[in-house]
Each structure stands twice: as structure tokens, then as C-alpha cells.
């Protein structure tokens, strides 16, 4: 039930932002208690698009449940699939061929760039600039076309399967990825010229939504939001999966803890992702793109945990198996859920207009939060 805005006995105004609001990027409902223009409390109401993916997964086999996870954080679909595939492979002790590992990482990093591009455009639009959205989508479209060519889909790719990837890369793949990198390097300075160095945006983001590193750890904030507060939490560095430990890239850290720090982390992360792709794109090993696996997968009785770094933070997949063809219980630790839980703490005491900047730099994807 959504109540209309009202004034409390203390004279505070209680208003609704959402569930349909341009700045919430989906159906998120915030009930905000205001004293004048100052936020006293933010209470997020979630679950408008809850689909109970965890329960659904319990009736799907180990090959099928992976597809549902594309619908969680749809901007990191590859990475979600990757986490589940890794978890199943761990249980079945499947050795993934080198070719598949390289393809997977290139796809993950392309997804990360595409996700950050969309975030950049959408966040700028939240703060009142419309042009950046077109700039971001110009580059993002190129990535989507690469995905479409190789995976057959632009958003929910379902490309990673236990044992490797679904199909081999398209013959044009390497050339088009290299074209994208050339394009990206030519255009990335525009991002800085438009937004990063723009004094109006800096003033709107600096010292807004401060989150200390202690609070980031306490609330379980991970990903670029956590790294903006100086918490070193990049899963790719700290518990490397696939061949991340053999690649050269930096974990981007900022210590300011405000919205601008989170902004800078994401912008620099895109450059690191390009660096990773450059190391791999000419060195994709020959061989199989998928290991030979049984038609029906049965995980041994036990518990399996795998965590990966999505574009929003740490995704944990916890599978409890009783030895059957379907999981007994699956729990997804979605990064957005924990990141959003810190919003109330961040927003208290700041102005209503700054809330949009905070939500923008937390990079909320509602299906990831609601699952």
C-alpha cells in the first residue's frame, strides 16, 4: 500500500519517491521523511519485481538455472552466468579449456564496460544532462553488436555454460573487439571533458553521500561503491578465478568516499577492463570452447560457494546440493541489495536534491536487488 504524503506530529513531511520515478531506474519505492529540505530518513520499499529466482532455481537442472540468472542483474548477465557456471564446475571438477577461459574473461570485461557506459549515461541524465546518454550509448551499441553476433542476444546472453561457452566466437569477433577498443580510446576523453572535469557536476557530487570505509564494510558495500570508500574488495584480485591472476590490471581505489569518488572508480575501471581485453584478444588459445560434460549434471552432496566481481560488486552463489539433478537450495548474494541498504545511512542529513546523485553513483539495478 502506498500512502499519500503527510505531515507528522513533529512537523516532518513524509513523501514518496517512486515506485514510478525517472531517477529510480525501475520500480523502487522510497519513503522519505523530510525536515524542510533535509532528509531525516529514507526507507526503501523493495520487491515490486520480485520473481523468486531462488525458488525457481530449485526446480531447474544445473544447466537450466543458469539462464534465469541473466534476469537478475541484466547489465552483468555474462558475469552472473559465469558465477553459476564456475560453481557447478567446482562441484563436478570440470577442467575448463584455455580457449573458453579467455573468451569468458573478454566477455565479462566487455559486459563491465557496457554496464558502466549505461551507468554513466543514466547517472548524468539523473543529474540533469541529457547529452552524455547519447555518447555512452554510441559506444555501448558497438559492444551490444559484438554480443549479438557471437551470443545471439544483446542483453540476456546465456552464453556461459558449465564446461565453457555455448558456441565458438564469431569469425569477426576479434576484429570487431579491436575496432571497439580503437573507438573507445578515441572517444573516452569526451567523457572527461563533458562530465568528469565539469565544475557543475563536481560540485554536485563532491562531499555528497559520504560513506566511510568502516560503514562500507559494516553494510557489506562492495564493487565500485565500496572501492570509492577505500575498501579493497575486488574479487578478481583477492580470489582470482579463471586466469585473472595471470593478467595485469590494477584495482581502482579512491578514498574520498563521496559520490565523486564512486564516479571516478567506475570511469577508471573501464580503462582497466580495456587493458585486460587488450592482453587477451590476440592471445585466445586454440582448442575446444567447451569441455566434454555429461548430458545430465549431478552435483555431489555438499555445499558450493563461488563469488565473482560483477559490474556492481560481489556476487556470491551458494549452492546446497543433496546429490540430485536440481539444486536443493540456491542463494544469490546480490551486490545491489547490500549496496542499497547503505542508502539510508548515506542520505541522512543531506538535501533531497542530492539523493539523486547518491542513487546514481550506487548504480542500482532493481532486478538485481529484488531477484
Amino acid at each position: 500500500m502506498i500512502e499519500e504524503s503527510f505531515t507528522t506530529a513533529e512537523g516532518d513531511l513524509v513523501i514518496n519517491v517512486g515506485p514510478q520515478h525517472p531517477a529510480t531506474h525501475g520500480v523502487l519505492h522510497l519513503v522519505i521523511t523530510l525536515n524542510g529540505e533535509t532528509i531525516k530518513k529514507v526507507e526503501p520499499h523493495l520487491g515490486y519485481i520480485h520473481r523468486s529466482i531462488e525458488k525457481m532455481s530449485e526446480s531447474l537442472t544445473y544447466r537450466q538455472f543458469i539462464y534465469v540468472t541473466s534476469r537478475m542483474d541484466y547489465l552483468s548477465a555474462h558475469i552472473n552466468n559465469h558465477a553459476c557456471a564456475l560453481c557447478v564446475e567446482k562441484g563436478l571438477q570440470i577442467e575448463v579449456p584455455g580457449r573458453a577461459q579467455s573468451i569468458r574473461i573478454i566477455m565479462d570485461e566487455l559486459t563491465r564496460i557496457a554496464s558502466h557506459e549505461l551507468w554513466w549515461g543514466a547517472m548524468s541524465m539523473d543529474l540533469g544532462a541529457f547529452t552524455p546518454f547519447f555518447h555512452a550509448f554510441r559506444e555501448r551499441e558497438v559492444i551490444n553488436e559484438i554480443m549479438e553476433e557471437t551470443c545471439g542476444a544483446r542483453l540476456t546472453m546465456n552464453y556461459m555454460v558449465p564446461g565453457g561457452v555455448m558456441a565458438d566466437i564469431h569469425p569477426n569477433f576479434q576484429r570487431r573487439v579491436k575496432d571497439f577498443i580503437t573507438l573507445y580510446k578515441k572517444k573516452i576523453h569526451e567523457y572527461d571533458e563533458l562530465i568528469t572535469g565539469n565544475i557543475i557536476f563536481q560540485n554536485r557530487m563532491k562531499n555528497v553521500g559520504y560513506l566511510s570505509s568502516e560503514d562500507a564494510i559494516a553494510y557489506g558495500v562492495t564493487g565500485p561503491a565500496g572501492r570509492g570508500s577505500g575498501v579493497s574488495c575486488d574479487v578478481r584480485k583477492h580470489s582470482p578465478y579463471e586466469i585473472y591472476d595471470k593478467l595485469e590490471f590494477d584495482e581502482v581505489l579512491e578514498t574520498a568516499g563521496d559520490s565523486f569518488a564512486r564516479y571516478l572508480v567506475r570511469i577508471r575501471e573501464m580503462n582497466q577492463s580495456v587493458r585486460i581485453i587488450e592482453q587477451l584478444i590476440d592471445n585466445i588459445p586454440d582448442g575446444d570452447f567447451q569441455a566434454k560434460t555429461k548430458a545430465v549434471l549431478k552435483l555431489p552432496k555438499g555445499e558450493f560457494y563461488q563469488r565473482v566481481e560483477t559490474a556492481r560488486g560481489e556476487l556470491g552463489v551458494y549452492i546446497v546440493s543433496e546429490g540430485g539433478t536440481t539444486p536443493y537450495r540456491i542463494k544469490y548474494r546480490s551486490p545491489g541489495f547490500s549496496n542499497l541498504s547503505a542508502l539510508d545511512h548515506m542520505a541522512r542529513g543531506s538535501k533531497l536534491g542530492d539523493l539523486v546523485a547518491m542513487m546514481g553513483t550506487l548504480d542500482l539495478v532493481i532486478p538485481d536487488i529484488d531477484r
Partner: protein
Amino acid sequence: MGLTNEHIKQRLTEKFGDQLINFEEPYGMLTFEAPRELNLKVLNFLYDDEELKFRFMTDLCAVHYPDNKGKELAVVYHLHNLVDNCRIRFKVFAPVEQPDVYTATGLFSAANWMERETYDFYGVNFVGHPNLKRILNVEEMDYFPLRKEFPLEDQSRVDKDDEMFGRG
């Protein structure tokens, strides 16, 4: 990497004796069980101990085992030590008739929403939680949907060829 699983286990046994049971290490993650009255004491110890410092709660969830009489609901904690990059998992079991478990919100702010989610899906009653109400489902709901007594799909369906879905 100063912290090893053996060392964590040794520290825990020194403190709690034989109250902690079923130590395992599946895929390198130390896993153990604690009595449910002790969950907060164990969490406190893991948080405050100078060597252990498990201060990052990554995950909290429940699992329902309907055949496990008297211990139907398992609450599973995943904790992370950011200094030594080490992770552990521990469980407490509660009966489904009275699933009372102490809340961890005093230690980890992240536990607030995670416990609400666990309550929402499994009905685990976190004693002392400041705001224990449903988070993803509607508040009028009077059942806990992820418990095993709610089957998702009618298994007697005949119109669906299971072979085509890889279940044959």
C-alpha cells in the same frame, strides 16, 4: 596470509570447547555448526578477536530441511576477514515451530536487511531485530514461500516432455 583454517579452528575450540561441532573444509572454506543460543557469542568472538577479525558479513541465508526433526531450519552465515582475505561459514539450526535466533544487527549493519530477507522467506525469528518485517514480499502474506512444503511445479504434469528439458 597469516590465518589458516587450522588456526581459526584452534582459536574457536579454545574459546568454546566442544560446543562447536562438525568442522569441515569443503573446497577450502572452514565450515562448522554452533548451538543456536551461542550464535551471537560466536559472531562476537569472530568479530572482536584480535587475530580473527571477521568483520565483513557477506551473506546470510537459511536452508529448510523438513526431515531434520527439531532442527528443520539452518541459518548460514558467511563471514569474511578482509585483512587476511579468509572466509568461513557457520550454521545454527532452529526448530521450525519456534525458529528464534539472536540477531546480528548489533555487530553488522548488513545483517539488518539480510535477516529481514531470511525472515521473509523462511520465517526465522531474529530476536532483537529493530525492524523485523517482510522486505521483498507483500506484508499481508502469512506464509514463508521458500520453505520446502511449497512445491513450485506440479510434478504430476504429463503434458510436458521432460526428456526435452534434460531431466529424463
